[in-house]
């Protein structure tokens, strides 16, 4: 069971094909798989459908795949940080399926957990409910949402051991575990690969069973909104 690869390109070797469906972790630019995104840009794989809460920003994160027009369709909850996204979407070059944020996260988890559909009150009576089955439980209406099953998941963790057990740091966890779960193959990039046995088994956020290939690398970890207070305010 050799899961550790030398580079993002090697880790993605044999997994990419035009028209494929990718689930990506991250929220905004926090906890995004920077290195794997770069490698997909490099690969030139096109007509991608990507499930990701956001689509990066212009020129960074998944925004890079917009610039190269490799994305055919996004499943996202919020794409407001990205002028190129708007341009492609409004011109009809890019398809967009809005998913409420919690619905998107749960759809990923559901896919990973072998649940093809679940009911939620989120979006009832809104445009999100259009074309979806409505069922009443206890006199209240819910809509059917389907599990997401991706060809490949690209995710980012803080540390992983050689068997793929991994831990995330603070709010960089976000969509990474559910995205990892819903990929037929999950490729993970981390800041540090540690020897197996050095992570406490009670502290592992995502067990190695979900992680098929791992790479270690340097991350820019760009900050989207740098908000601070002055020491004297405290």
């Amino acid at each position, binding site marked *: 069971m050799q899961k550790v690869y030398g580079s993002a390109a090697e880790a993605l070797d044999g997994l990419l094909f035009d028209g494929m469906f990718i689930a990506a972790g991250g*929220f*905004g*630019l*926090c*906890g995004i798989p920077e290195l794997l995104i770069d490698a997909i840009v490099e690969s030139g794989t096109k007509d991608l459908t990507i499930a990701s*809460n956001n689509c990066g920003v212009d020129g960074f994160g998944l925004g890079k795949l917009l610039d190269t027009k490799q994305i055919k369709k996004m499943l*996202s*909850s*919020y*794409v*407001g*940080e990205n002028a190129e996204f*708007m341009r492609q*979407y*409004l011109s009809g070059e890019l398809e*967009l399926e*809005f998913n*409420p*944020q*919690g*619905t*998107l*996260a*749960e759809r*990923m*988890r559901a896919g990973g957990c072998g649940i093809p559909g679940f009911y*939620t*009150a*989120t*979006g*009832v*009576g*809104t*445009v*999100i409910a259009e074309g979806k089955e409505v069922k009443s439980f206890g006199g209240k209406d819910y809509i059917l949402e389907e599990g997401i099953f991706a060809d490949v998941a690209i995710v980012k963790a*803080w540390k992983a051991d050689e068997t793929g057990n991994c831990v*995330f*740091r*603070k*709010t*960089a*966890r*976000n*969509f*990474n*575990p*559910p995205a990892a779960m819903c990929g037929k193959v999950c490729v993970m990039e981390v800041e540090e690969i540690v020897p197996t046995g050095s992570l406490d088994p009670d502290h592992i*956020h995502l067990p190695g069973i979900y992680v098929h290939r791992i790479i270690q690398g340097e991350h820019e*970890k*760009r*900050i*989207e*909104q*740098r*908000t*601070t*207070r*002055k*020491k004297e305010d*405290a």
Partner: protein
Amino acid sequence: MPWDRNQMAARAADELEDGWYVNLGIGIPTLVANYVGDKDITLQSENGMLGMGPFPFEGEEDPDLINAGKQTITELRRTSYFDSATSFGMIRGGKIAAAILGAMEVAENGDLANWMIPGKLVKGMGGAMDLVAGVGRVIVVMDHTNKHGDSKVLKECTLPLTGTGVVDRIITNLGVLDVVEGGLKIVELADGVTEEELRAATQATIV
């Protein structure tokens, strides 16, 4: 004189009860955190955190620690982190006592529109639809009218909805209204605002 942004936020903070877990939206709702005083309120950030702290000191920003508005923040002693599926599980499951959100339009039946202007603003709903469908109490904080002077408190929303019949209370610069059977009920007037002024600025039925 109508309330300003900070007064609206302070008034919204009065809605919160000791021990509550609360989600604050972007804009004026964010300011509510400044007015909770001694109350034991735990703020959720729906990207995966309970116990959201203030902005970091300059130079202490952590790219792995942001709120749902993508701003750098800090943690508290009570903080816990979790993934997005768990985060929205607690929202959808009614564990969050209240969400305080901004709005473009609210209707007298509690319908809320706060995520889209067709053909113009197509950013996405983020977590707003999950929040209004899941939390215990939805409190809207917004200006009573838009910049053209048109009422945002309507008989029916004209914009795509975020949720139907979800709003419990509306706090505007002119006062506080509750969604009740048959329309809206005036709970309170902003200092110096008359009932006539509020009624004149309101398209919705006031009962």
